[in-house]
């Protein structure tokens, strides 16, 4: 029979996974507005020559750093939050877990990142290594691209293309006085649509959110396998 404490711990781990699935999604959806606001400021600075002559270079030089910094900050804060929630579960009084302070740097070889805790399940008397969701130092050492895949931090080439294409499209039927504003709005709209897909979700299943959810699944399964049966 599954030890009674294992039944309880399983439920708490599953609840942790479910809550963080939602939290990651909601946080990214909310914080996208901050990113869009920052990008809008950069877009408004675009002159005609930037739009029509060197849109791709401008995009890479001015938009990409904003996006990359945002993604790194969000992933770092998400990793810290999810990990803190996991620690609350495994260190809760009822399970009498004790943590091992030794942390190994993430080398990209493990499916679950570092193992940061050892635990004693009181009734089962078994030692269990509880895999961490991730530690930010380990993730940053190995690189986010190595951890979640290169797509989550790369500035999509398609966006640069869309920016210029959208700008050209906005030329048609515009009055000269409103032209720049229309072009900016068109670029904003296209960039937002592309980024939403890259951050929240897409058919290829490789957005920031989908990759983080995938990692959450892997860690959950690894923990459930470690719980004494």
């Amino acid at each position: 029979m599954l030890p009674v404490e294992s039944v309880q711990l399983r439920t708490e781990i599953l609840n942790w996974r479910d809550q963080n699935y939602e939290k990651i999604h909601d946080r990214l959806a909310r914080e996208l507005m901050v990113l869009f606001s920052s990008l809008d400021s950069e877009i408004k600075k675009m002159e005609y020559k930037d739009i029509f002559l060197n849109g791709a270079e401008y995009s890479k030089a001015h938009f990409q750093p904003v996006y990359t910094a945002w993604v790194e900050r969000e992933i770092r804060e998400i990793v810290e939050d999810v990990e803190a929630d996991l620690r609350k579960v495994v260190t809760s009084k009822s399970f009498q877990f004790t943590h091992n302070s030794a942390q190994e740097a993430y080398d990209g070889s493990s499916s679950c990142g570092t193992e940061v805790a050892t635990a004693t399940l009181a009734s089962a008397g078994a030692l269990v290594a509880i895999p961490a969701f991730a530690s930010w130092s380990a993730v940053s050492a190995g690189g986010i691209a190595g951890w979640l895949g290169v797509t989550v931090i790369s500035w999509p080439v398609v966006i640069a293309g869309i920016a210029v294409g959208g700008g050209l499209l906005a030329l048609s039927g515009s009055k000269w006085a409103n032209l720049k504003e229309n072009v900016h709005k068109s670029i904003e709209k296209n960039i937002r649509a592309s980024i939403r897909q890259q951050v929240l979700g897409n058919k290829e299943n490789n957005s920031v959110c989908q990759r983080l959810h995938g990692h959450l699944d892997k860690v959950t399964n690894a923990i459930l396998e470690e719980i004494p049966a």
Partner: protein
Amino acid sequence: MIDSIPFKVPLEFAAGLADGSITRIGTLLKDTATGQIVAHVQETGVAQNLLQGISSTPFMALGGLDLASSGYANYQLAQLKTMVEGLQVLQYANLGVALAGIGVSVIGFSMINKRLKLIERQVAEMGARIEQHFSDLSQSMLRHHYYQVQTLFEMAGQALCLKNPDRELLAVASQLGNESGYFRGEVTYMLSKENFDPELFLSLTRSYTLCNAGRLECLMLARELPAAKKVAQDVGSHYRSLFDPLVPNRIAINMLPIEERWLESSSIKLKQIQGEVATLVQGVRDATEAALTKPYLIDTLIEKDIDGYEYIKTLREEKSNPLYLLTAT
């Protein structure tokens, strides 16, 4: 007879549960400090009669149940209130635990059949949706299995009129194992698809859990407690495999048309679906926890040398209390 089995009522543990000295896990209560099991939650026939009247909302939050509109007469309404209060004392949030039977199922074979007929009718009304979810599953195949299961429960009911029903009950239990496997297979297949239909999922899951509840009841009545314990363990393990991967956020996103999934304008709709799915997932998770702790109850019956047939019979014949706690110490 009830006096010969060490039962208590939920209120006797209310103080311990409230101050945290007793913790409920699934359907068992344990001493928080020592980890020792102190009691097991056990339904009676009264509980199952009452649940029948509100079974259209199996995962309704206890706090949200509109007892007055249940259509029960005063006496039954008072019993229903007692049951809901008992479940609340035991810190259950919804009726998910009842899906797999609270403790050992004492639902009775004729009542199982009533429920199955209702589910079968609901499934029949989903004709086109079944085609959409199961390209290789026809209505006639499902109908065949529902008739098969209903016949088995009739046979189990008839067996109880025999002088020695054990052999017949064991044969029914064995065949119910096959039918349980059939429904498990369909639920597994359905969950492997990206589209999720909560209503169809619930219908198939309830059919599956009713097969398991009836199978255990047969084994208990045939006094085969070690076999019942093994079946309960296996069922718990199957529930884990089936229901652990269910994540409300993922299911809710997949329930939206693909072109709407990540749009800002879909966020309110997504939240609404997510809330509904979360209630459902919480329900099956409570049922899984209940299933995982059921072998402990059977273990207690074995340790205390309580006869399986008498145990079920006593609980079925109970007229006033919907819930008991079988003390383990």
